[in-house]
C-alpha cells in the first residue's frame, strides 16, 4: 500500500514553527522559574514576536503553497502577519505592569497569548476551510481563557464564559456552512471552490449560498459586526483590560484576513450575493457603533461599541468589491491597531490608580497630566475621523472607494454616522480638558507604556499628514487580488 505524502516545505512555515516552539519553550521555562523570574517571560515573548516579525519579513511572499495548498505564503499573508505581530506585541508591551499587579503573570498568560497569535497566523495563511477553522479555534480558545484569566473576579469569569458559549455557537454555524460548501463541491480548498463556482455558470445549488452566508455569519461574530456584536460590550468590560486591549485588535486582523481569503479567493464569483450582505452589516454596525456608544458610562464598553462602528467602516471597504476598497480596508485596519492600542494604553495607565474604567475618571486629566491628556485626545480625535490625524485618512479612503464603486448612499450614511460618533469621542476630550479633577492621578507611567503611547501618537500624526508609505505597502499587498 503506497503512502502518498503531500508536498512539504517547512521553510514557508518558519514563522509559525518559531512561534509554536517559543510558546512551548516558555511554558516549560515558566514552570522551571517558579514565582520569581516570571516577569522575564513577558519580555522573552515580546522579543520572540520581534524575531517572528523578522522571519516574516525574510519570507519570500512568492505565493508558494505547501501541504497540498493548505498553507499559503504570499504578499498578503506577509503583510497581515506583520500586522498581527504588531497587534499582539503592542498590547503586551502596555500591559506588562497591569499583568504583574493583578497577579496574572504566571508565564501562562504570555504563552496563551503566543498560541492565540499562532492561531491567527494559521488563519491568515490558510488555503482551505479546514485550516481556517483550526486556526480560528486555536485563536479563539486561547482568548476565551485569557478573558477569564482574573479568576477571583466574577465579571472576568462571566466574560470568559459568555465569550466561550457564544463563540462556540458561532464556530458551529461556521462549520455548518463549511460542511454545506464541502457537500456542494467535494472540496474544502478555496481555489477548488472558486473553480466549482465558475464552472457552474450560475446554476449553483442554494446550499452554496446558505453555506456562504453561514461562513460569513460565523466570521462576523469574530469581528463583532452587527448583528453579531452582542457579546462585545460585556466581554470587553469584564475581561482584564490588558486582554481587552489585545482582543480589540488581534482577532480582528486575523478574521479580516480570513474574510479576504474566503470572499476574494473562494467566492469572488458570488460578489453579487455577498456584496449587499456586507453593505447591510456595515450600515447596521455603523448605527450600533454610533448610537449605542453614546449611552455608555464605562470606557471599555464605549470602546467596544466604537469598535463595532469601526468594523462597519471596514465592511464598507470590503463590500465595494474593488481593489480600491480592499486597499482602504488594509489602510483603516493598520491605523485602527495603533489608535485602539493607544487608547487602551491610557486606560491601563489610569487603571494603576484603581480608576480609568469609567468615563468620568478622565475628568481633569489635562491639568494634572497634560501630555497624557493630549495623547488621549489625539486618539479620540483620530477615532472620530478628524483631520489631520490618521483616522481621517482611513475613513477618507473607505469613502472614496465606496463612491467610486457607486455606493454613494452608503458613503453618505457612513459620513453621517461618523459625525454622530464624533460626539462621544469628543465627550472624553471635554471631560479631560473642561472638568475639574476628581482623582489625584498619582500613577507612575512605565517606560514601555510611555513608548507605545508616544509612538502611536506620532504615527497618528505622521500617517495623517503623509500617508504615502502606508498607501504604497497596502497597494503592493492587494495586487495579488486583482
Amino acid at each position: 500500500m503506497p503512502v502518498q505524502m503531500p508536498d512539504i516545505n517547512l521553510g514557508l512555515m518558519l514563522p509559525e514553527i518559531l512561534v509554536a516552539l517559543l510558546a512551548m519553550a516558555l511554558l516549560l521555562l515558566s514552570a522551571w522559574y517558579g514565582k520569581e523570574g516570571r516577569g522575564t517571560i513577558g519580555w522573552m515573548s515580546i522579543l520572540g514576536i520581534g524575531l517572528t516579525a523578522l522571519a516574516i519579513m525574510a519570507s519570500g511572499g512568492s505565493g508558494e503553497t505547501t501541504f497540498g495548498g493548505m498553507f499559503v505564503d504570499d504578499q498578503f499573508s506577509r503583510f497581515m502577519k506583520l500586522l498581527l505581530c504588531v497587534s499582539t506585541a503592542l498590547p503586551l508591551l502596555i500591559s506588562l505592569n497591569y499583568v504583574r499587579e493583578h497577579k496574572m503573570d504566571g508565564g501562562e498568560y504570555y504563552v496563551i497569548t503566543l498560541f492565540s497569535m499562532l492561531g491567527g497566523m494559521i488563519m491568515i495563511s490558510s488555503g482551505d476551510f479546514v485550516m481556517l477553522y483550526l486556526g480560528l479555534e486555536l485563536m479563539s480558545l486561547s482568548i476565551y481563557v485569557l478573558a477569564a484569566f482574573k479568576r477571583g473576579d466574577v465579571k472576568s469569569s462571566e466574560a470568559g464564559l459568555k465569550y466561550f458559549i457564544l463563540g462556540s455557537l458561532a464556530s458551529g454555524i461556521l462549520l455548518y456552512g463549511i460542511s454545506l460548501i464541502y457537500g456542494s463541491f467535494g472540496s474544502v480548498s478555496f481555489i477548488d471552490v472558486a473553480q466549482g463556482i465558475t464552472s457552474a455558470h450560475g446554476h449553483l445549488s442554494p446550499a452554496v449560498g446558505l453555506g456562504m452566508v453561514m461562513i460569513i455569519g460565523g466570521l462576523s461574530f469574530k469581528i463583532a459586526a452587527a448583528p453579531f456584536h452582542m457579546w462585545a460590550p460585556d466581554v470587553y468590560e469584564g475581561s482584564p483590560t490588558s486582554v481587552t486591549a489585545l482582543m480589540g485588535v488581534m482577532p480582528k486582523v486575523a478574521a479580516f484576513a480570513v474574510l479576504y481569503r474566503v470572499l476574494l479567493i473562494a467566492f469572488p464569483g458570488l460578489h453579487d450575493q455577498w456584496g449587499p450582505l456586507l453593505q447591510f452589516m456595515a450600515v447596521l454596525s455603523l448605527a450600533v457603533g454610533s448610537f449605542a456608544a453614546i449611552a455608555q458610562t464605562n470606557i471599555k464598553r464605549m470602546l467596544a461599541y466604537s469598535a463595532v462602528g469601526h468594523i462597519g467602516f471596514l465592511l464598507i471597504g470590503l463590500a465595494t468589491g474593488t481593489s480600491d476598497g480592499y486597499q482602504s480596508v488594509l489602510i483603516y485596519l493598520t491605523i485602527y491597531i495603533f489608535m485602539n492600542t493607544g487608547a487602551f494604553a491610557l486606560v491601563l495607565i489610569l487603571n494603576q490608580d484603581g480608576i480609568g474604567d469609567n468615563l468620568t475618571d478622565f475628568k481633569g486629566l489635562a491639568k494634572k497630566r497634560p501630555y497624557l491628556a493630549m495623547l488621549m485626545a489625539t486618539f479620540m480625535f483620530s477615532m472620530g475621523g478628524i483631520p489631520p490625524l490618521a483616522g481621517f485618512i482611513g475613513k477618507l479612503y473607505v469613502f472614496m472607494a465606496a463612491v467610486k464603486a457607486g455606493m454613494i448612499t452608503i458613503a453618505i450614511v457612513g459620513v453621517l454616522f461618523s459625525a454622530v460618533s464624533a460626539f462621544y469621542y469628543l465627550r472624553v476630550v471635554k471631560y479631560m480638558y473642561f472638568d475639574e479633577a476628581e482623582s489625584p492621578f498619582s500613577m507612575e507611567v512605565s517606560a514601555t507604556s510611555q513608548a507605545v503611547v508616544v509612538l502611536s501618537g506620532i504615527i497618528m500624526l505622521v500617517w495623517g499628514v503623509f500617508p504615502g508609505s502606508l498607501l504604497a505597502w497596502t497597494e503592493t499587498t492587494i495586487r495579488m487580488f486583482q
Partner: protein
Amino acid sequence: MVADIVFYLFATITVVAALGVVSAKNQVHSVLFLVLTFFTTAALFVLLGAEFLAAILVMVYMGAVAILFLFVVMMLDVEFSTLKEEAVQYLPLGIAVGVVILIEMIVIITQVHVDHNNMVAVAGEIPNTMEIGRVLYTKYLLPFEIASIILLVALVGAIVLTLRERKRPKRQNIPKQLARTREEAVELKKVASGEGAS
C-alpha cells in the same frame, strides 16, 4: 428497504431523544437522553458506512464526555427550574428563528441534487477506518498537528483557570514523623473525677 426502516427508526429516536435533552425536568435525565442521542447518531454513522466515526462517538462522547457531564450535573447544585422560567420568555423568538431555519433547510434539501461522487470515502472498497488512517498522517498532517496544539492550549487553559495553589500546602513530612518519640507525643495525666483535664 431494511436499511431505510432502520434509518428512520434511529433517526426518529435521535430527534425524540434530542428533544428530551432540552425538555427533561430532571437534568440527570437530560444527560441520559444525550447519551441516547449520541448512541443513535452512532448507529446512523454505521448505516452510512462510517464505522470509525461511530466508534469514536461511542467511545469518546458516550464513554467520556457524557459521563463527565453526568458528574458535573450531579455535583453542581443548580436550580434549573428558575433558569427554565427565564428561558420560556424567549421561547416565541426561539421558535420563530427555528421555523425560519427549518423552512430554509427544506427549500435547500428539496432543490439540491446530491452528487454521490462527493462521497468517495464511503463508496470506496477500502474500509473507512483504514482510509482515515491513510490520510490523517499524510494529506491532513498539518491540520492534525494544529489540532494537537489546540488540545495543548485547552490543557494549559484548564489548569490555569482551575488550579488553586494553597498558601500552606499540607504535606506529609515522613522523616519528621519518624523522628517523633513517645515522650514528646504522648502525655499521661491523672484526671480527678469531676474536675476535667487542664
